[in-house]
């Protein structure tokens, strides 16, 4: 086959594709304002109708269950306040279905790489960072600006699977917009500075900008300080170039490996559900080296599936979970119940339901999440139906 034959064959391209290629990048201010307005509407809708997955997916042309290598799903959470749950922001960053699964070409924003100070990556002594599927580079300048630049190989995330979390804190204003920077359509989440009040203390949160874009092969994310101008952002993106040796741009700081001694759990019997809840199938059954257990059941009719988790840990290991829930107890329901002869603490939000109890010197939890999660009442019934089994390998799955 000659090059001329190949060139002639390209002449058979679809008319629709030819017409599409005629389009030009928008340049006018008016169009850009239109895009900003559209983004504002999306933000507005994301708090209303987009909250309904079916509507949101219909609007974005997505189907539940569709493998979604070409999209980006950001979960904008408020981890400081679990009562608020998490709000999902769906950004449309297209990637090629056949994009590389591992990083074949590394990209670096040369402007900060050459002019700013690197922020060392902390790695355990004796180790080197692996950049097979993701890279991480970060710099700071003398005026308080910083850049955290990441390159991700084809992530293959599903529709409902969060790729990222953007913590906004209490009452922080946040916006989503889209702008053309360095030749890419970049989607940006901007979180304004705010004051975080929790546990009786106040903390200033400085705000940030988080940018997402793709060149079709890789997904890029960049976090920068709130005050960084669009001009600087543009200059940074303009400076992005492929490099042959990314290690030249990395500063590594070795930190001694810290291994926290885990309390051991040596149980001779465990409480285990006599049967899986209707519609649920066991997916995991693990025992960790310190003796802890983790079991997972999935109800696979939704995407993501609803989950049911049972964990058994040494006593005291659930204290942090309790603290988290207690922080939010003033708005979300916390109840005390009796089930299976045990005192059970029940928590329920609009995102999860969880039971916590002690038994046999161990901390037990059952938790349900997902679109068709089980309410506290159902979890209590599961607990009632648990049997005490001397077979401590019951339910373990390879």
């Amino acid at each position, binding site marked *: 086959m000659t*090059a001329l034959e190949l*060139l002639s064959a390209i002449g*058979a391209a679809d008319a629709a594709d030819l017409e599409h290629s005629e389009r030009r990048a928008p340049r006018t201010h008016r169009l850009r304002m239109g895009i900003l307005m559209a983004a504002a509407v999306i933000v507005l809708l994301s708090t209303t109708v987009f909250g309904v997955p079916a509507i949101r997916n219909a609007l974005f042309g997505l189907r539940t269950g569709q493998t979604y290598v070409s999209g980006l799903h950001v979960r904008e959470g408020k981890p400081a306040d679990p009562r608020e749950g998490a709000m999902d922001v769906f950004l449309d960053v297209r990637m090629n279905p056949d994009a590389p699964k591992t990083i074949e070409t590394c990209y670096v924003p040369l402007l900060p790489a050459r002019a700013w100070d690197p922020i060392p990556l902390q790695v355990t002594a004796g180790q080197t960072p692996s950049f097979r599927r993701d890279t991480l580079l970060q710099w700071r300048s003398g005026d308080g600006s910083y850049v955290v630049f990441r390159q991700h190989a084809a992530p293959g995330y599903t529709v409902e699977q969060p790729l990222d979390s953007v913590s906004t804190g209490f009452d922080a204003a946040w916006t989503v917009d889209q702008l053309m920077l360095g030749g890419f359509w970049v989607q940006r989440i901007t979180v304004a500075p705010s004051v975080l009040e929790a546990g009786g203390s106040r903390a200033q949160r400085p705000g940030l900008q988080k940018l997402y874009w793709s060149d079709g092969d890789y997904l890029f994310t960049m976090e920068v300080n709130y005050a960084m101008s669009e001009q600087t952002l543009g200059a940074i993106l303009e400076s992005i170039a492929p490099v042959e040796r990314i290690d030249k741009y990395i500063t590594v700081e070795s930190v001694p490996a810290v291994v926290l001694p885990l309390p051991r759990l040596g149980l001779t019997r465990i409480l285990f559900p006599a049967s899986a809840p209707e519609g649920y199938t066991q997916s995991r059954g693990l025992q960790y080296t310190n003796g802890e257990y983790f079991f997972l059941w999935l109800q696979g009719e939704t995407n993501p599936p609803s989950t049911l988790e049972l964990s058994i840990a040494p006593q005291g290991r659930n204290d942090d979970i309790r603290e988290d829930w207690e922080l939010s107890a003033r708005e979300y329901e916390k109840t005390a119940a009796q089930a299976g002869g045990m005192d059970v603490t029940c928590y329920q939000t609009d995102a999860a339901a969880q039971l916590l109890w002690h038994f046999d010197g161990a901390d037990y939890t059952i938790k349900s999440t997902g679109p068709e999660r089980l309410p506290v009442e159902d979890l209590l019934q599961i607990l009632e139906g648990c049997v005490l089994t001397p077979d401590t390998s019951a339910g373990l799955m390879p």
Partner: protein
Amino acid sequence: MEDAEIVALYFARQEAAIAASQQCYGAYCYKIAMGVLANHEDAQETLSDTWLHAWNAIPPERPPRLRPFFAKITRNLAIDRWRRLHAQKRGSSLELALEELAECAGGPPLPQQQLEDKELEQSIRRFLAACGQRERDVFLRRYFFFETTEQIARRYGIRQSNVLNLLSRTRKKLKAHLKKEGYLP
């Protein structure tokens, strides 16, 4: 004038169809022909051939959109002319495009039967369908319309180096695709 009106003129066998085509799409097709031939006279002659070709094709054809219809005719005629004149004319965008595409080609010319069956064309359409939108756009601007990388960069508001990178990656993919489909050893 709307496309449907021009097509109606062709169907009515009125020569005004050619004048209307020239008026609406003359500059557009001239640019395509110039991209291939890099010569004003040759491009003008190709344009005349384009209207003649369209006159013979419509009817029976009734293209829904004339822009891509004329683009394809002009491109094919320009490539044919370029083939005939190749020994004398140098430096066109087509020549550069051929040099770039040479990395995706190789081996002897395809058998005549295979060309007539348009198997390679189908394969290219499958490849383009699997490309990302931006990849496809840039690829077509370069190898269908023979635009320079600078023109493409301006069109899409991206850097020329991005265009070069994108084209390079797309050619690599095309080569892999052609290998998979048995066109390359």
